[in-house]
C-alpha cells in the first residue's frame, strides 16, 4: 500500500530569505580502486581546484561542512583526518554530516540563510574500495531484524526493479533503456545478471571519489563568478525504513521535496538524478513528473549520472555540482538536482537551481538582493 508522505505540521515560516548560489564545483577522477591514495590525498586536489576557481583561500571561507561515512573507511572518526586536507588553521567554523555531501550542502545553505556566513565550502568523499560495498551497506538496515540476514544493496534494488516490472512501469529487458536513449549515448549492453532482473548495465560502477562545492550569498556570489547557479529551493524528506511498508514503485519523499523546493512551479531544462540503479531512474522520473510532454525538453543526467560514476557519499553532491556547472556554462537556465540515501530511495533531496537571465534570451531580470 502506498504510504502517503505526511506533510509537515505547519507551513515553513517565510522570513528574510537570502539568495545563495553554487559558485564553484570540482570533482576527482572516479577510480575503481584508490588503494594507493588516502582519503586526504584523494580530497586535496579537489579542494585546491574548487578554491582556485573562486580565488578564495581556506581562511576566507566562513563555514565548512562535509559528508562521509565511517563505514566505508572501516574506522571510527574517519572524517577527522580529512579535515587536515582543508587546512583548518587558524581554526575554522566547521561541521560534518554522516550523510551524502548533498545534505552537507543543505546544512551549509541553512547556515548562510541565518546570515552568520556569506561563503561556505562543502565537500564529500567515499572510498568504497576499502571493503565490499554491497556487504557494507547491509549495515544500514534494521540491526535487529533485517541486517542479520545481510540482504545486500543490489538485492534490495532488484526487489524494487521487480516491483516496477510487475507494475508494468518498466521492461524486464532494459530497465535503463529510456534513460540511456535520452542521454543520446549508445545504449549500454545489458550484460550478465547481477541479481535478476538487474544486469551489470543496470548497476552502478563501484568507484572511489570526492567532490567539492563553494556556496556564496548575494553580491559575494556575483563577485566570485560571472554566472552563479542560484539555489531557488532546497528540501529533503525521509520515508519509513522498512521496505514492507513502502510502495517501491513510487517515491513520495522525492515528490514532496520537489514541491517544497518549488520544482513544479516552472519547467526545468536539466535534471541530474541520483539513481544508482537504472530502475530507480524510472521511479524518480515519475515522482518528478519528468515523463510525458512535461519532460520532453528536459535533459536528464547529461553528466551520465550515478550509472557513470557512483562514489558513495559524494554522488548526490556531484548531482548538484553538475547541475550548477551546466548553469554556469550557460547550458541551462533552470535545473533540478536530486540526491538519495538509504535502501531503495528511502531519503531524497531536491534542489532547484537557476542562472540569471542571459542577454538576448528575452528573460526578465530577477529581483535583486
Amino acid at each position, binding site marked *: 500500500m502506498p504510504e*502517503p*508522505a*505526511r506533510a*509537515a*505540521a*505547519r507551513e*515553513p*515560516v517565510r*522570513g*528574510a530569505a537570502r539568495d545563495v548560489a553554487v559558485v564553484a564545483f570540482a570533482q576527482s577522477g572516479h577510480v575503481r580502486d584508490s588503494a594507493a591514495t*588516502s582519503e586526504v590525498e584523494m580530497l586535496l586536489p579537489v579542494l585546491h581546484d574548487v578554491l582556485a576557481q573562486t580565488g578564495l583561500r581556506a581562511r576566507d571561507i566562513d563555514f*565548512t561542512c562535509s559528508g562521509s*561515512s*565511517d*563505514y566505508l573507511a*572501516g*574506522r*571510527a572518526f574517519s*572524517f*577527522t583526518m580529512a*579535515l*587536515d586536507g582543508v*587546512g*583548518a*588553521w*587558524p*581554526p575554522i*567554523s*566547521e*561541521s*560534518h*554530516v*554522516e*550523510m551524502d555531501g548533498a545534505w552537507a550542502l543543505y*546544512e551549509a545553505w*541553512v*547556515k548562510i*540563510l*541565518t*546570515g*552568520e556566513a556569506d561563503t561556505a565550502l562543502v565537500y564529500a568523499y567515499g572510498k568504497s574500495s576499502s571493503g565490499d560495498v554491497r556487504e*557494507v551497506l547491509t*549495515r*544500514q*538496515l534494521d*540491526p535487529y531484524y533485517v*541486517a542479520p540476514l545481510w540482504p545486500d544493496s543490489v538485492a534490495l534494488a532488484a526487489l524494487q526493479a521487480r516491483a516496477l516490472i510487475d507494475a508494468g512501469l518498466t521492461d524486464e529487458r532494459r530497465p535503463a533503456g529510456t534513460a540511456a536513449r535520452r542521454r543520446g549515448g549508445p545504449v549500454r549492453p545489458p550484460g550478465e545478471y547481477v541479481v535478476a532482473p538487474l544486469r551489470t548495465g543496470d548497476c552502478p560502477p563501484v568507484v572511489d571519489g570526492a567532490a567539492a562545492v563553494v556556496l556564496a550569498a548575494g553580491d559575494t556570489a556575483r563577485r566570485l563568478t560571472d554566472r552563479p547557479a542560484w539555489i531557488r529551493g532546497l*528540501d*529533503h*524528506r*525521509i*520515508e*519509513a*525504513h*522498512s521496505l514492507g511498508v513502502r510502495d517501491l514503485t513510487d517515491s513520495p*519523499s522525492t515528490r*514532496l521535496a520537489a514541491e517544497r523546493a518549488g520544482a513544479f512551479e516552472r519547467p526545468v531544462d536539466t535534471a541530474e538524478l541520483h539513481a544508482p540503479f537504472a530502475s530507480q531512474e524510472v521511479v524518480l522520473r515519475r515522482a518528478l513528473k519528468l515523463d510525458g510532454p512535461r519532460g520532453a525538453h528536459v535533459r536528464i543526467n547529461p553528466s551520465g549520472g550515478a550509472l557513470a560514476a557512483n562514489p558513495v557519499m559524494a554522488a548526490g553532491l556531484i548531482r548538484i555540482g553538475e547541475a550548477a556547472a551546466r548553469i554556469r556554462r550557460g547550458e541551462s537556465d533552470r535545473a533540478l538536482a536530486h540526491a538519495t*540515501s*538509504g535502501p531503495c530511495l528511502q*531519503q531524497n533531496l531536491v534542489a532547484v537551481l537557476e542562472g540569471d537571465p542571459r542577454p538576448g534570451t528575452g528573460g526578465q531580470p530577477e529581483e535583486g538582493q
Partner: protein
Amino acid sequence: MSKEPVAVVGIGQTKHVAARRDVSLAGLVREAAQRALDDAALHWADIDAVVIGKAPDFFEGVMMPELYLADALGAVGKPMLRVHTAGSVGGSTALVAANLVAARVHRTVLTLAFEKQSESNAMWGLSLPVPFQQPLLAGAGGFFAPHVRAYMRRTGAPDTVGSLVAYKDRRNALKNPYAHLHEHGLTLEKVQSSPMLWDPIRYSETCPSSDGACAMILTDHTGAAGSPRPPAWVHGGAMRSEPTLFAGKDFVSPQAGKDCAADVYRQAGITDPRRQIDAVEMYVPFSWYEPMWLENLGFAQEGEGWKLTEAGVTELDGDLPVNPSGGVLSTNPIGASGMIRFAEAALQVRGQAGEHQVDGARRALGHAYGGGSQFFAMWLVGAEPPAR
C-alpha cells in the same frame, strides 16, 4: 539581516545506565523524544524537522542509523539530518537544529542525540587498526593523559585537583535523577585511592560508559509564546575545528576552543564570563579537564583554573557552579553527552533543574568538545529573550 530568536521549550532524557537491555535503539530514542514533547506540551505532528547526532556508527554497529530511526522519531515525510562531529556532536547537533529555526526554514524542530554503548564495545569501536597511522593508545584516556600531565607541569597545579573535581561531580550527580552514577558512599579519600588507569588519571576520575539519549524541542518566537513552561533562549552558539595533529597545536588549551568561546560571548554580549555567566555545563570526561577548560573558556587566567576548583568556586553552591548535573564524569552516552550539557544549561535558566538547580541562574553555558581536542561546540542560553 536578522535571525529568528530560538527558544528551547522541551527537554527530555532517559535515565542513563550502563545497559538498557529492555529497549532497542529505536525504543531508547523514542523515550527521550517523547519526554521532550511532553515537556513542551507538543505532539509529533507539531514537529517540522528532525536533527539527530551520535558518535561513531561503530559504537552500535549500525551504519547511518538515522535511516533506521526515521520511524521511531516520527520523521517519516519530514526532513531528517544526521550530524557527526566526534565527541562534540551532541552540541553541534543542537546548533544545526537551532539554525533551521534561526534561518526561518522551519518553525519547530526536534533534536536528539544518543549512544547505546552496551550494543557494542566503545573501546574496540575506537581501536580499529588503521594502516600507517598511530593507534589510539587504548581508548581516549591514553590519548588525553599526557595532555593532563602537560597542564600540571605548565601550571604547577597540585596533584589533588583532579580528585576534587571528581568528588564534586559525583556528589552533584546524586541530585540528578537521570545521572548514570549514583555513588552514595563516595568520599574524597576513595577517589584518591582508586586505581591509577592512565597516570595521572585515576579510575574515579574517568567517565562511565552509558546508554542514553537526550532530546530538545527548539522553536521560534511564536512557538515559545505557547510554551507551558519558561523557555530558554539561545543567545549565542558556535562551532570551531582545528586539525588533529600538527606542530603548533596546544593540546592543553586549543585555539579552536578559545575562538569558539569568544564567538559565543560576542553574540551574547558577554564581556566578563566569570561574572556574567551563572552556571556552566562543560564537557569534562576526565576530571582534570575542568581546570583546563576554565582557562580555555576565559573563566580564569592562564595557569589559574585549578585555583578556582581548589577554592570551591565550581561547587554547586559556589560562585560559578560547573556541572551541577554531575557532568560527563557521572553520565557518558558519548554521542549524547554534548547535548546533555546544552540541555542542562537550558534546564538551569528555565529553573527546571530540580535538586541540582543553581539559585537564580539567568545565563548558562553549554560546552562540548571532541576528537583530539579539535572540535568544539558551545551555546549560551538565557532566561530572557535575546535583545535585538
